[in-house]
């Protein structure tokens, strides 16, 4: 499978990265080289193999049902949460107007 400029533009739009014509044209052969190279995975016989997402056997734990059990991940830290926001206003994250 290979991508053309239109497809790269669509992917960039899905990924919310603005790209100019030059950049898109530059990326088409780069991505196609990489995609062509990963095609070789199609040779592998994967009959009956389950896809692996967790490599080391580990069970998901349940934590005690306690509010604010760990202060580091607890609530009540609004100022910390907002400390790095580019536009914090009135205790909220500010964004451009969404509703006309």
């Amino acid at each position, binding site marked *: *499978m290979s*991508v053309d400029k239109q*497809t*790269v533009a669509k*992917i*960039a*739009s*899905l*990924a*919310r*990265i*603005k*790209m100019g014509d030059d950049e898109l044209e530059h*990326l088409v052969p*780069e*991505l196609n*080289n*990489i*995609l062509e*190279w*990963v095609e*070789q*995975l*199609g040779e*592998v016989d*994967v009959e009956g*193999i*389950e*896809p*692996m*997402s*967790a*490599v*080391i056997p*580990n069970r*998901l*734990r349940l*934590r005690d049902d306690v509010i604010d059990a*760990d202060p*580091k*991940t607890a609530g009540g*830290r609004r100022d*910390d*949460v907002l*400390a*790095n*926001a*580019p*536009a914090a206003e009135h205790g909220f*994250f500010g*964004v*451009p*107007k*969404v509703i006309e």
Partner: protein
Amino acid sequence: MTELTKLGVKAIRDGVRAGDFTAREVAESFNSAVAAAAELNAFIVTTPDHALAAADAADKARADGKKLGAMAGVPIGMKDLFATHGVQTTAASHILEGFEPQYESTVSQNLWDAGAGMLGKLNLDQFAMGSSNETSYFGNVASPWRKDGTNAAMSPGGSSGGSSSAVAARIAPAATGTDTGGSIRQPAAFTGICGIKPTYGRCSRWGVVAFASSLDQAGPMARSVEDCAIMLGAMAGFDPKDATSLQMDVPDWEGALSADLKGKKVGIPKEYRMEGTDQAILDSWEQGKAWLKDAGAEIVDISLPHTKYALPAYYIIAPAEASSNLARYDGVRYGLRDLPEGAGLQDMYAETRAAGFGDEVKRRILIGTYVLSAGFYDAYYNQAQKVRALVARDFEQAWAECDVILAPTTPTASFPLGSLEDDPLTMYLNDVFAVPASLAGLPAMSVPAMLNSDGLPLGLQLVGKPFDEQTVLDAGLAIQQRAAFDHAPEKWW
């Protein structure tokens, strides 16, 4: 006083404990060395006060007769992928420039609790995506090593290239690294130092800027196996804040170190004898076998049939996870915001991400977005996850025949900065020997073996069973004792 910068973790820790020198003297020496090495560009920010404060605390604890921590008096470099409270944390990306976390990552907190101090935040490939340290927004990192008779700047490897450069240049006794597909081992090999990636889950990922969450794992980089064992012991441990953290005790790796490999079987995977591998690398591999045999181990040939497919599988899985993880950089909660006059929310996202991410990061986000998109998910992502299962199964079957695997760390020695920048695929191939252990979540280490004919370091890699960092470290120690690699780069910076 400059002599102190020649010391490693163990020597500093023991010297501070014995009162041979103070922790403050050590911190001052390294702070000066860091300040004088700006040409390496190993640090994004320096934090001399942090190092001094930790040193003073260690000296006071000793004066008060208190028990000193495992890293007391040791100033280290912190890869700028770990969130550090109140200290800029960027992942070497413009999109996080100026970000000052309001919390401390678990791994860095563990190190401070053990008495270590911070010399500064180390440069890296942007979002840890790269194998040469040429993708940082804050400029390339230079290796302290140069080819004999040339002045060309060489790559320190990546992504933990600030870490490898600093430790090799003796401006830090040790540094943290992270390894997603070789980012500790490859730079360690390029710069003649040691680095270990533990079993996935040993070190908490909480507070580490995420790249590919099913692969990311932190580990130490230092100049000896003993130093790595000490520092890994301080970094590792169960953390309920990371859902994939291993709920297991941290063994006393340092205390149990032994270079006697009697009764151990070392596997030599035939598939690692790949086309394009330097003859010098193959020679060092042969030498490694002889060293481990001399340490009492039995050498056995093994097969890891899916080795060839590990790297292409990685270049689907890692970008897929990255495209998802990096969706958080939206110009709303932290980091850069690029909001042109009159632009709406969607434009703000796209402009911010266009201005904030570097080319390699964009490339990987696009690949990841593509392989996860409707209609391609099965052909790419699902197939890659199945191949990953086969790569892991290869290792499981190998453990029936051996206790640890010996292989080269990289197919070549370091290369000049800039020489591969237009060729992403060749760059990716640098991690061909490192990626299989990452996909399988196994502990793996690089130790320096020798210099090649250009005077550049070559590393050997050891891969162990899950949770068996000890055998990896033991085999590393056996190589270290026989390689007697005491080369240091000639100072030019």
